[in-house]
């Protein structure tokens, strides 16, 4: 599913934009080292981690979009994400709920393919 559609379906706030790619995978974790080890490229990453290093991790792993759940996003992180052209999205829901919704969206799409 295209990122722009996921943004609409989950009612996400857009802090930084990247390319509107088709997303097939998502990953949820707050430990950067785990994301470095396991996240797939062109995926969405759901996390509460707001340290600026999340942008470097997303760049290195070619993660397309980061969804920060539950909380505000520091200005420096937004600035960095804009520089790297990575989608930085805010969700008012918790990680469990956001992940569940995205899981369902991606599963439904696979069934219909």
């Amino acid at each position, binding site marked *: 599913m295209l990122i722009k559609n996921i943004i609409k379906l989950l009612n996400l706030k857009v802090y930084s934009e990247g390319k509107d790619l088709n997303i097939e995978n998502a990953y949820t974790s707050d430990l950067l*080292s785990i994301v470095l080890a396991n996240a797939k490229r062109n995926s969405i990453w759901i996390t509460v981690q707001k340290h600026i290093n999340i942008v470097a991790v997303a760049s*290195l792993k070619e993660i397309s979009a980061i969804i920060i759940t539950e909380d505000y996003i520091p200005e420096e992180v937004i600035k960095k994400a804009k520089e790297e052209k990575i989608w930085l999205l805010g969700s008012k829901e918790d990680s469990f709920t956001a992940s569940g919704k995205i899981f369902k969206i991606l599963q439904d799409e696979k069934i219909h393919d």
Partner: protein
Amino acid sequence: MTDLHIHSTLSPCGSLEMSPKRIVERAKILGINLISITDHNAIQNSEQTKNLAEKYGISYIYGMEVQTEEELHVLTYFDNYTDLSNVWKTVYEKLPNIKNNPDYFGDQVIVDEEENIVGFEEKLLLNSSKISLEDLCKIVQENNGIAIPAHIDSAAYGIISQIGFIPHDSFFPFLEISCEHKEKELIDKLSYLKSYKFVSFSDAHYINKIGKCYTVFELELPTIPELLMASKDLNKRKIIDIIRS
């Protein structure tokens, strides 16, 4: 004046001006007389910094800042290179084989005493070694070292942010609090911390941050046993003050 948390060019986030020579020169100007280089999961700039420090009349303790699998930062210190190297080998072996991309994280540069670049570390150092906090403390102790949780007040990579509280059975002689906060603020929030001794070091990644905050100890010698005595207020060894500039 003691600053035991300084990053060199080897840390990806460390500025390229942080060569052993520049660090030692800066410490000399500031009057800091005990330093340690604590790079992330790495030690290859240690020996040359110690050699230079000695030439400048500055004492040096071997150090490394380890990132454990809980993604928290622990400062480790040793009196001799063999002990440091033993612990580093374990930490490095357990560090995932992910290549650093300098565009995102910065270069990881090994520099000699004359500021020549002698090598690059290829593995991404700002990552977690697959070693638990508990196991790290164990091997540090086995190798005659001490471990100090770094910047425990920090929202990322701090022991409290990562695992909620400090384990009761831990053997930390000190806790490091970053330059920006005072231990009293923390103890007001988390009263169990009052049984610990606090230190502050600069965590400098840039030359002008060295000594931004530092700890003043009363020690006979710049060694691990002396620091341990200071942590227990034994034999007149103690922490005199934490200075934040």
